[in-house]
């Protein structure tokens, strides 16, 4: 019975190890750096079973976890928004080639360097559209420590089942929130999906494989040759991957329909916002997606039909709200919680504003007339 006070980042790491992770490559970036630090300490203590690399940048990290996975490892990396942006080409490569691996994105306020220590949720659509071309990503977003552990295990399993990179989303709050958990209890009873594709050089001798980002014939008489002008081959591969990913996603219909389910108004929120907004539980119903991608279309349609009003609260400019509207074909109200200002007051102000017919855009505060003393904690 190992009860321990741990933070979300640590729970993610333990979940990865419980799922069989044995390779980590990463780069320090707030608010995910603890995962790198913990991984390096773990690797030092378990150097035979767990390999670690602090790479020169996020691009190297993302490509390294791909190489390690092809070599047979269960690999992962952790980063934040700007680092995830650097990794997008590699995400696309892993999608195209079919490489099981896990990307952890502990979000902060962007874009660019943004507000490194303030929580944000601005990467929701970057996960879906960040790499060039069409692909069907899977992504999960926990809102607590135990959930972070479990969801990370599920991400590794989904990666093996879909043969693709799966994203674990989090935010500064979830990453740094500390809760007491029983690690042994968490680790017991989880199911781990094992790798089925042979690792590099462990294939059937006589038919060496060619893992390429470029479109290649995967089977048949032209196996291993480029198919760079064959639209038919593109269709075969694209839809096979899409269907496979959607099939796997169906096994993870992860969400919470809670708070006051009989209320008239449905609030949709996730991650940090769902924790901060919990005082609303008496008066509102909650739909909290844990699987962010593919969108929980059926579940959203079924749940939202019961409510006369839907408000999406999120720490971005309406990214999940857009997805909800597309899925349920019904307008939703939006409360953006930007700049790291995620508080119950901001939530209530926003709800009052939009539910009384006001704009989703908050009133713009006047510019300061005196120098703003820098806050050492970055907390406003």
């Amino acid at each position: 019975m190992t009860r321990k006070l741990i933070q979300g980042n640590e729970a993610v790491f333990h979940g990865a190890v419980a799922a069989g992770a044995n390779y980590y490559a990463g780069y320090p970036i707030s608010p995910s750096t603890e995962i790198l630090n913990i991984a390096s300490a773990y690797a030092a203590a378990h150097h035979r079973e767990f390999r670690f690399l602090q790479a020169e940048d996020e691009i190297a990290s993302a490509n390294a976890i791909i190489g390690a996975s092809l070599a047979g490892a269960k690999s992962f990396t952790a980063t934040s928004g700007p680092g995830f942006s650097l990794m997008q080409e590699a995400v696309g490569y892993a999608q195209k080639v079919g490489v099981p691996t896990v990307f952890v994105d502990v979000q902060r306020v962007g874009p660019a360097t943004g507000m490194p220590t303030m929580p944000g949720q601005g990467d929701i659509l970057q996960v879906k559209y960040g790499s060039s071309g069409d692909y069907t990503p899977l992504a999960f977003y926990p809102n607590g420590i135990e959930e972070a552990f479990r969801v990370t295990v599920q991400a590794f399993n989904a990666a093996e089942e879909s043969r693709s990179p799966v994203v674990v989303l989090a935010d500064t709050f979830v990453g740094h929130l500390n809760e007491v958990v029983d690690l042994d209890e968490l680790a017991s009873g989880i199911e781990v999906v094992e790798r089925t594709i042979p690792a590099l050089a462990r294939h059937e001798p006589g038919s060496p494989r060619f893992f390429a980002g470029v479109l290649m014939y995967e089977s048949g008489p032209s196996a291993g040759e480029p198919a760079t002008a064959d639209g038919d081959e593109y269709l075969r591969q694209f839809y096979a991957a899409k269907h496979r990913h959607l099939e796997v996603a169906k096994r993870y219909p992860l969400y919470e329909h809670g708070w006051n389910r009989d209320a008239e108004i449905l609030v949709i929120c996730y991650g940090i916002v769902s924790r901060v907004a919990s005082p609303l539980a008496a008066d509102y119903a909650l739909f909290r997606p844990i699987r962010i991608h593919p969108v929980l279309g059926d579940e959203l349609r079924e749940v939202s039909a019961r409510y006369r009003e839907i408000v999406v609260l999120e720490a971005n400019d309406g990214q999940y709200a857009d997805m909800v509207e597309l899925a349920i074909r019904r307008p939703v109200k939006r409360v953006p919680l930007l700049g790291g200002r995620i508080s119950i007051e901001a939530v209530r102000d926003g709800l009052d504003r939009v539910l009384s017919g006001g704009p989703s855009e908050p009133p713009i505060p006047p510019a300061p007339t005196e120098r703003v003393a820098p806050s050492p904690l970055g907390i406003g």
Partner: protein
Amino acid sequence: MPELIMAELNYKRHLKVDLFPTIWCPGCGIGSIMMQLAMVLEEMGLDETNTVIVTGIGCTGRMGSYLKHESVYTLHGRTLPVAEAIKTFRPELNVIVVSGDGDLASIGGNHLVHTIRRNAHLTVLCNNNEIYGLTGGQTGPTTPTGTKTLSSPIGNPNTPINLQGIVRSSPHALYAKTTVYHQQHMRTVIREAVEHDGFSFVDITSQCIENNGRRIGFASANEMLTHYRKTYKRAPKGAQTLNPFEIGILYPADGAASEGEAGDGNGAAPKAAAPAAPAKTVPPAVPAKTVPPADDDQKARRRAESQKRLALMQKLDPAVKLRVAKGEISLADALREAGVDPAELEG
């Protein structure tokens, strides 16, 4: 030595010959690299069960699809992070990276610096054709100053990157310089690079006639190879640096000379490999720069001359043409014999 003879006979079993002819242009240097690599793999007993090939983007990257090995065709510039991770997780594998100068030293430059710094046990073969060939012929990181390319129409303003310097910044890395003309030397250095117990980089000057050479005044791949023969010389024994246009191997400063299955660690391979083309005479001193780019007048004149030659050659029968091509008889004599006035050559 029997292993070498067998290698020369059996190297083709590493190649997917049923996919030949390759997609590379006639006259491309990459084919030579592939052939010598296949011979080294055969010599050393490396096959798909113990060796993984990692290739980059560019013409060179296509080599993976012709080798009967498990291979990874990475994103542009990212061969080294992928290869290093494979080697870290599976240290028993030989991991050989084959890529071009742009992929390794431009977009991949940052990874080059750090992979060397970490002394990843990789063998890197760099097809250094001083150009971005596949995209038509833009300046690359090793393109000499002043070269006219599609992205430097009035001449490359930049100094080429110092590959030797970057590799030699590590005391553990092996650096070798060779050219595709010097095939035996190339095979030798590739073997030493694979055997080296640390990071090794083979910088192979290679011709891209289609998207570089013909734009800078070479009429054929053969002319480029001849240029390499005349310009590149072996570095003196024990050299600690290679001067421009010198070929040779620089062993790591940490004293870990190449070790490997071949044994004595200080060049069993070069002793065993008979040099194919030792210079029989001391060649005349050559200017320390490449052939100056031809101006438009020169190019037009050369084009007209070669078209005239071609038209005249058509008048000869095939057996005579072959003798002219072999140099057994001059074109003028052959024309005379065929009853054509050789003065038309001058025209």
